[in-house]
């Protein structure tokens, strides 16, 4: 019985990692579409979101079946519940990537320079590294790495805030650029949301390997 459960858990982890690979790729491609003004690539990212939706449903089913049929306990139970939450977060990462891709598509049709968004590519770089690191922490079972990810959240929030402020200034000064600025505001906000999901994944990693719930601790202190 336990051997079967072990095999099922390995399969669950691998499916979750395949989904993570899709989510990670979606964000990278969405940013490429934005910087390269590539409407075709943006369309592909939007279309790929359905794959992530399908993964979410399949993984949820898998987890519920394991809970119902195998009655897991302790670390096994934690892995299944953590997988369910990571699954949900990854699906939302996909949604945000699709949102960025839609903005990239809209911006690619606007004939204008990239003025007033200089920080977005750098923010994206940090966010992609954060997402990647939180998933590395999950694969390696490295809670130290996971805690490092959680620390980064505030910095990303601050950078998003400053980008929003900068874009608002541009809108006030050049009203004809409001359309483009609004799209860029959505991109920046989506990146910040992706970072939030990555932090959620990191928190689940700490829960999974240490059995400690550290959510919202930073907010209280």
């Amino acid at each position: 019985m336990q051997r079967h459960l072990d095999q099922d858990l390995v399969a669950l982890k691998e499916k979750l990692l395949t989904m993570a690979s899709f989510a990670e790729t979606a964000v990278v491609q969405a940013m490429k579409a934005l910087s390269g003004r590539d409407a075709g690539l943006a369309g592909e990212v939007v279309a790929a979101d359905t794959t992530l939706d399908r993964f979410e449903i399949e993984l949820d089913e898998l987890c519920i079946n394991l809970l119902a049929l195998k009655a897991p306990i302790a670390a096994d139970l934690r892995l299944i519940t953590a997988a369910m939450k990571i699954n949900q977060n990854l699906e939302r990462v996909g949604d945000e990537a699709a949102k960025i891709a839609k903005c990239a598509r809209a911006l690619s049709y606007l004939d204008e320079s990239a003025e007033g968004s200089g920080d977005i590519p750098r923010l994206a770089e940090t966010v992609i590294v954060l997402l990647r690191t939180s998933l590395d922490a999950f694969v390696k079972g490295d809670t130290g790495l996971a805690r490092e990810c959680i620390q980064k959240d505030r910095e990303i929030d601050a950078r998003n805030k400053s980008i929003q402020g900068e874009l608002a200034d541009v809108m006030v000064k050049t009203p004809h650029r409001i359309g483009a600025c609004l799209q860029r505001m959505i991109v920046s906000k989506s990146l910040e949301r992706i970072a939030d999901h990555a932090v959620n994944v990191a928190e689940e990693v700490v829960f999974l390997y240490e059995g400690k719930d550290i959510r919202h601790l930073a907010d209280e202190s």
Partner: protein
Amino acid sequence: MLAWSILLPLLALAATAAALWYRRRYHALQWQAARMQTEIRTLQAGLQQAAHSEEAQREALFNSMVEGVLLLDTQQRVRLVNRTLRQWFDWSGDPADRSLIELFRDFRLQDRVQAALSGRQESGFEMELPGKMPRILQANVAAVKDLSGKVQGIIVVFHDLSPLKRLEVVRRDFVANVSHELRTPLSMIRGAAETLCEGAGDDPEARRRFQEMIRKHASRLSLLIEDLLVLSQMDSGRVSLDMQSLELAEVVPAALDDLQASAAERPTAIRNRIPCGLAVRADRNRLLQILYNLLDNAVKYGRPNGQIILSAESGRDGMVTVRVQDDGPGIPAEYLEWIFERFFRLDRARSRNQGGTGLGLSIVKHLVQAHGGKVWAVSPPTGGTVFCFTLPQAGRREEGSDAAESGPA
């Protein structure tokens, strides 16, 4: 009774003889067995050694490959990974027995492995490897089959495309730069010529101005083409150096003569502090070109009414270091490693106004390297820039320095 008395000794004799025969036979057999055992042991050791050396050979071959190689079983679990791949991917712990998706987290690689397992062959694909040293890898997936055609495992070979991609960027930038640099003077010349044709030539003052413009840009164009030719000669290794022992203090005045006019125009004072008796092994004309390019830069970018100090000293390593120091605004530290790149300019507009081609320092770097020396620049925060280059000292390691005569490094 008599019969017994005869028979008994005979029987005893026969028994003794038989015992003796058996004993001898036993010893012979024992000796034979021992010999065979030794032979078997030798053979076994030989076989083991052969197997070991074959395995060692296989492992050495596998690990010395510049490509990354991965062997998977039919369950997509890692069986073997070579050293190159381990170096590229930062895996904690042993990758053996771990799953493909856990190690690479790339669904496209997983899809291709799945396809190969079900007998389909798909073309290679490029994957980006993030990290401190980002790489672009091309992964090719192939199935390993037994004699009956059944898939036994999967082999994935990763080629590092990053150097190629980098070269592609350099080539693209170079072509773009050359076209831009050629087009600018050419369009100036065409513009001036057209204006002259359209009647501006009637006014003597305007005619003189446009003619001067044509002359200036035509000479820039020819300078640029000359520099490009020198660089291309050096790239293809066609530059031969006539290495000889040269007294620095005797060569330098020739370079200074050529610069007198432009130094007087700025005006800039060039202080020659090269000590007498310091000899280098170099090609005279190439050394003059190195000195001219560096001093010309110092005159152009130094402070008006400033001074340039030219000095040299011999080092313990058998090399002579020559320094050209100006008192200009200096070069920001982050650009110091870029200034020897082709067409790199700190201030494009200013450099063109000064008539630079953007290739001077790149030529200096190639020439110095061809002599077996190196070139670098330092720019202290207090201002000014010091360009330094080294050349082999003559008379110290004559036999060693002859090797540098064959061509560029």
